[in-house]
């Protein structure tokens, strides 16, 4: 009897060290994995958004030109991923809106810009990257979709060119690329933001009227804007949940 006990005890003693080492390392691994998972979750949960401060926009059109250069958008004045609108509101309530060639070469003075003007300003527009996108809802084949980080993209190798998404977008943000015959639109410069760069329009904006960032980050120009400004979105009654937030957006803007 005593000999068996002794043998058992020796075996147990011999196994103690490797077992506990194994256990501890497993716990350690789990800890590492958990951190990795959290990091993955953090990047996976990145949710991109843009802020536009209307009172800072000077209507230079650099954003429109930069977007076309960065993304190979056709130069003709019928295809825009982003554009700038000028609003001139007169004393008598008349509102004049224009966007000559999307504002790509800026704007020119007009005779109407006289003493009867009550307010005037510029409003940059682009795809609002909605969280409840009507364009994704109507695509019959799944060629346009929302990524996990909230950006709406178009798969131009799969799009059949039915144009339903263009009809469904309330903001006029989509067009049909005449070269590929597929739908196209602003992608928040997805190829840039995934590498930590800014979208081209945000990069070149001279007055920081456009700010970009992750809606979930704790510190970014977008975060500050969201904290300090009253935010508006375009066409809120349609419940598209846009992720492009405007501050100082006039009620006349559609």
């Amino acid at each position, binding site marked *: 009897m005593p000999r068996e006990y002794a043998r058992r005890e020796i075996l147990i003693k011999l196994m103690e060290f490797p077992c506990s080492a194994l256990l501890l390392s497993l716990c350690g691994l789990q800890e590492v994995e958990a951190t990795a998972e959290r990091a993955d979750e953090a990047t996976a949960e990145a949710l991109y958004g843009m802020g536009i401060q209307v009172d800072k926009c000077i209507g230079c059109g650099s954003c429109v030109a930069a977007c076309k250069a960065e993304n190979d958008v056709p130069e*003709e*004045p*019928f*295809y*825009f991923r982003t*554009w700038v*609108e000028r609003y001139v509101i007169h004393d008598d309530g008349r*509102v*004049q*809106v*224009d*966007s000559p*060639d*999307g504002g790509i070469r800026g704007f020119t003075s007009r005779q109407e810009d006289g003493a009867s003007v009550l307010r005037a300003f510029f409003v940059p*527009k682009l795809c609002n990257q909605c969280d409840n996108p*009507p364009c994704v*809802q*109507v*695509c*019959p*084949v*799944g*060629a346009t979709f929302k990524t996990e980080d909230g950006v709406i993209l178009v798969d131009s190798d*799969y*799009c*059949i*060119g*039915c*144009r*339903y998404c*263009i*009809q*469904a*977008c*309330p*903001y*006029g*943000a*989509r*067009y*049909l690329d*005449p*070269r*590929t*015959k*597929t739908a196209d639109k602003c992608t928040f410069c997805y190829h840039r933001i995934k590498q930590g760069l800014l979208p081209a329009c945000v990069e070149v904006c001279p007055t920081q009227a456009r700010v970009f960032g992750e809606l979930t980050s704790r510190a970014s120009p977008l975060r500050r804007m969201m904290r300090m400004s009253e935010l508006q979105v375009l066409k809120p009654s*349609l419940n598209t949940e846009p992720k492009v937030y405007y501050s100082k957006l006039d009620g006349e803007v*559609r």
Partner: protein
Amino acid sequence: MAEHFERLESILGQISGYIYPNEIELHWGLLVVLYPYITGLVAGAFILASLEKVFRVKEIEPTYRLSLLTALAFLLVAPLPLLAHLGHPERSFEIFLTPQFRSAMAMFGFVYAWYLTLVLVLEIWFEYRADMVRWSQGEKGLKRVLHWVLSLGSRDLSPAAVAFDRKAVFTITVIGIPSAFLLHGYVGFIFGSVKANPWWSSVLMPIVFLFSAIVSGISLVLILYYVTTMMRRKPLDMACLDKLSEFLLYALIVDFSLELLDFIHRLYESEESIKILSELIFIKLGLSLTIVQILLGTIVPLALLAVARFTQLPAELKRVTYFIAALLVQVGIFSTRWNVVIGGQLFSKSLRGLTVYKLELGGMEGLFSSIGLLLLPFLILFVLVKVLPPWDEARGE
């Protein structure tokens, strides 16, 4: 592509007010107007046929088989304008591979396939099977083989089999009525569910589409019955014509009431879009809506049909009245489709501007190809009528 840009360039000068820059190109043109028009005819013709089969309206029996063949001829052509309009028609099968079920357009593949095969073709097959067997037994050469193949080699002419055929036709028609509603109703939903477009977005859209489909289908069958009977130098069955135009009158009244309701409702609620939509109706759609759709396409036919129905006209005059009314109705319904599809794109979503639609003559989206697509179903119908004659004298019984 340069011509395309030139055309868009010329539109720039004709814009009034402000439109979003991307709205310069009008996306759904004449080809997309054709599709609801054609499926409307299909649904309407089938519903007329179902009146005879399910609701036992005996008077219109002479048109029963003709309605089915008409529906088939037009249904075969229906996807063609859509295919022609796609940017990548070669990828159109993706609708069958990976349909996105929240999209009304994705339903096209399934509703179309269901309706074509399990409703229309099956009904026609069961309706004609006994006759096809008899024809194939009595004919020689190609026609014999053709009818043998079409009847899938069936030979059973026993009373039990024929009775089964009749029951099958009845059952399929009963299933077919809601299927026809779905076939055209979903097209209405495609437009009616677009919240971005205040001209389209309406609960009534599928219903209005459906009733205008019924109207157009009945009037088409009336026209075809009239024309084919004249061509075959047979006497017109006036009871049949009377019944057809009676149904046409009722359907037209309902259709007009629905459209009137939509109009009154919009004016009453006077939402934000009312200003630009009023401009749209009076400036851009003055001819196609007020004159063609409402006056020529609805009010005049209503008056003609009412006069023919409620007064004592000689038969010769009555049938000409019916014919003219039916033709006007066709024009009116086409104009309805035009006003919905094109009209919805003539104003900007900024609610501040109007644009124009430049209809080309040639090319895939041009007038000539659309005319060709509208003539094609008649060609197919001609072939179908030769292969599966719907006339009473062709029946074996």
